[in-house]
């Protein structure tokens, strides 16, 4: 189907993920094994102990809330104690616990699982879909992340790729991927806005595209605003309507709630194409006092949906206004507006965006697929002979150092294109200070402790002097891989100290290696099981042939110089082979096949020697 070095682009979304590739110079989405373009980013251990990933996991999410993990993208790479995680824990239905390094673990199927492992299961599913499509293994991918992801979150995503058996060629910003999918950078230059309203998050980004260079000049959003909020409004409308009619609260019944959620999403999607949608849920609940099960049937119009979700729509625009103002970008400065995410299919959203930006947004590519397609374009460019589009990463957050008084001094501001290097001069703050401590901070707050501490080091043996007399050069370097190096140099002596900060996704290298080893064993066993039946059949045939010949051979052997040792060896080989017929691992089966093949060869050699055996 395709060449052996096929690479894929993956949009690893909060609610849905998509995998794409380039075929004949055209990017295309690879459908999953159930024929869908979108795979829900949901992992579960069902009540009967089966691991589920994707659509099936999503469909049992409400009836099995403790065993279903979703929206891990909001948590990945963050510290357990961080404000964002504390907020997230209030609404999550699955158990989340603190790991050894203040990282996040979820309890799933009785095990504590890291978030990169959860994401790896989704990535692994997409990898399998791609392998089914190509007919051979796929090991290389470009994976997208939101533009605001910090180094830790990016590293955690890379770790997830590794665990899934993918070499992540590049972590690509989602808005950049969307712009690439529309062919920006090749022949279109200028400022473009990416309006991304997905299933669980809203992101608005402004890119500066110039001669093949993509620069994120502004990004912002709300990681708790997306299609699910729209679904919830419909769900509430259905619940309250039913309660009014029948006096029953459907929210108390998980089965009813699951059906309502599915139906609400379906109706919402339908209303992007039609003016009204009928929601029909027979036998939705049994009345409290018993009796025949009740049916829910309601008609939802597009107008009603817009009324129910008007404030959500307005929120996207107020966030957009704020982000553009911060970046000092006016709607009229923009050359194009790209719609991304399934929710932008809603006519009202598209209209509001058009009204806000005073231009028709780009709609040519399916909005829920555009990010994956862009990732595929970049993956293809990185691995083919064509000149790759130059993508410039930016620092998603400001970097700086702690200074006297508990304040933070920013040396590199957010959205600075990398690689970059900045040096500033600092002085001692006390008389006779012989040591300065450099605390490297990431964040936007002027108060030191409100930022994330990335690392710290000391420059010692300074000359004792009055405060302010000694000057120290502090240099921040960020290379193209996003690795931050900070050095401090005494101007007087040239003495220097430094630190290199390697992003951590929450897992230590040892933990990552252990998980990968475990994963490889699992993958090997799964892969082997597909071939085991065929190999067992081969083994069974060999066992039969050896058993048939053995009585004659035994006679010859007993009378020959081989003696009884050879007989015993054959008997042992046969015994092992019979056990191997019940083994699960293909390696065991293969080993017996080799042994029996050698035995048969020995039989033939004996035949030639004594002419006593006829096969």
């Amino acid at each position, binding site marked *: 189907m395709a060449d052996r070095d096929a690479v894929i682009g993956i949009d690893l979304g909060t609610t849905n993920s998509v995998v794409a590739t380039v075929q004949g110079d055209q990017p295309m989405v690879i459908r999953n094994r159930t024929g869908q373009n979108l795979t829900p980013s949901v992992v579960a251990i069902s*009540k*009967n102990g*089966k691991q*589920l990933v994707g659509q099936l996991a999503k469909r049992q999410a409400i*009836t099995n809330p403790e065993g279903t993990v979703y929206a891990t993208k909001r948590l990945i790479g963050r510290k357990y104690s961080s404000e964002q995680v504390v907020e997230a824990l209030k609404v999550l239905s699955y158990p989340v616990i603190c790991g050894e390094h203040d990282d996040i673990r979820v309890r799933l199927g009785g095990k504590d699982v890291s978030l990169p492992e959860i994401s790896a299961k989704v990535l692994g599913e997409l990898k399998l879909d791609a392998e089914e499509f190509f007919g051979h293994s796929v090991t290389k991918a470009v994976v997208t992340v939101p533009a605001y992801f910090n180094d830790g979150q990016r590293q955690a995503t890379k770790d997830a790729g590794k665990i899934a058996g993918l070499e992540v060629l590049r972590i690509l910003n989602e808005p950049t991927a969307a712009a690439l999918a529309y062919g920006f950078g090749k022949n279109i230059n200028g400022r473009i806005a990416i309006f991304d309203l997905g299933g669980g998050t809203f992101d608005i980004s402004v890119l500066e595209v110039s001669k093949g260079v993509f620069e994120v000049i502004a990004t912002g959003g709300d990681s708790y605003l997306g299609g699910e909020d729209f679904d919830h409004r419909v769900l509430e409308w259905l619940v309250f309507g039913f309660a009014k009619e029948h006096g029953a609260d459907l929210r108390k019944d998980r089965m009813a709630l*699951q*059906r309502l959620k599915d139906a609400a999403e379906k109706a919402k999607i339908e209303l992007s194409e039609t003016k009204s949608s009928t929601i029909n849920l*027979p*036998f939705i609940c049994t009345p409290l006092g018993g009796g025949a*099960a009740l049916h829910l049937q309601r008609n939802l119009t597009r107008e009603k949906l817009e009324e129910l979700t008007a404030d959500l729509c307005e929120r996207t625009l107020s966030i957009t206004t704020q982000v553009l103002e911060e970046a000092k970008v006016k709607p009229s400065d923009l050359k194009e507006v790209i719609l991304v995410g399934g929710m932008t299919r809603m006519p009202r959203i598209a209209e509001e965006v058009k009204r806000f930006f005073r231009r028709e947004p780009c709609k040519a590519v399916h909005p829920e697929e555009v990010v994956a397609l862009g990732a595929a374009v970049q993956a293809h460019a990185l691995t083919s002979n064509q000149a790759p589009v130059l993508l410039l990463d930016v620092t998603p957050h400001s970097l700086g150092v702690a200074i006297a008084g508990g304040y933070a001094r920013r040396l590199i501001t957010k959205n600075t294109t990398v690689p970059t290097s900045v040096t500033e001069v600092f002085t001692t703050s006390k008389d006779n200070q012989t040591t300065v401590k450099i605390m490297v901070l990431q964040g936007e707050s002027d108060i030191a402790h409100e930022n994330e501490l990335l690392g710290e080091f000391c420059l010692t043996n300074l000359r004792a002097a009055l405060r302010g007399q000694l000057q120290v050069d502090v240099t921040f370097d960020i290379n193209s891989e996003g690795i931050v190096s900070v050095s401090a140099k005494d101007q007087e002596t040239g003495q220097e100290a430094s630190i290199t900060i390697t992003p951590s996704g929450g897992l230590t290298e040892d933990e990552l290696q252990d998980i990968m080893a475990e994963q490889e064993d699992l993958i090997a066993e799964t892969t082997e099981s597909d071939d085991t039946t065929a190999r067992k059949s081969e083994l069974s045939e060999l066992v039969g042939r050896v058993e048939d010949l053995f009585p004659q051979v035994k006679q010859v052997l007993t009378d020959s110089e081989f003696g009884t040792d050879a007989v015993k060896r054959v008997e042992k080989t046969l015994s092992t082979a019979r056990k191997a017929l019940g083994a699960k691992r293909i390696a065991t089966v293969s080993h017996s096949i080799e042994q029996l093949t050698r035995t048969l060869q020995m039989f033939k050699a004996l035949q030639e020697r004594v002419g006593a055996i006829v096969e």
Partner: protein
Amino acid sequence: MSRSRAEQLIESGLWLRLSGDLEWSQRLFEEAFRLDPAAAGAQPTQHEPNGAWSLAYQAELWSLLPIKVSPWPDPFASPGAVTAADSAADTWSQNPAWQAPAAAAVNPVPDVDAEPLEFEELEPPVEKPAPTPSAPPQPLETGPDVDNLLQAAEDFIELEDPEAAMELIGRAEQIAPDHPDLRLIRERGEAALHGLYEDRLGPLDAIPKVSLGAEEIVALNLDHRAGFVLSQIDGVSSFEDLFSLSGMSRLDTARILAELLEQNVITRA
């Protein structure tokens, strides 16, 4: 199955009847008859060629009843005749001590060739103090009746009738929830029942589809759990998938799917 097993089934049937469960006691008696028609008191009379129980035997059963129940239809009873059950109930209410009711005399049946009944050989039931309204219901003490129920349940499992077995296990649980054999027998029963349902479903990787239209579905008599399972059948998900999606136990899901299949609500694609 030996005569002794048939007798055990009869004994279990008697206990069920004592507890007021006519339907299931009848099933046990019928099973006993199927196993050994010559079992004591179990022969059908020449008036009842379809294998029904002798009226004398019925009379024996009625006489044991402590409460009023509707006996099986008696084609020979004249209108207004007093039944053994009525008599037994009255006797019970009048005199708490066990009295052998004159069953045959109360409800004479012509041409009945059964032997006279030996009620005296039966142990009189032990009276229990009436529970106070506030006292939580206490399980009855484990006795030979529960053992017999469980034995009968095991027989039904052997006879590949796990549905009947599970009913008996349910009854045994009500009487003696802490019986040491209950858990094991329940597991066996559930496994057998599960096997039965899965046999009805056929290959579990088969994909079911709904064979009725929306209007026909609404006209069905389903509960919300069956409604939920039905709503998950999308023409793509296999039976195995549905076990994971249902949020119910595998056994419950299999039962619902088997019933939907049996009622032709769904078919295998």
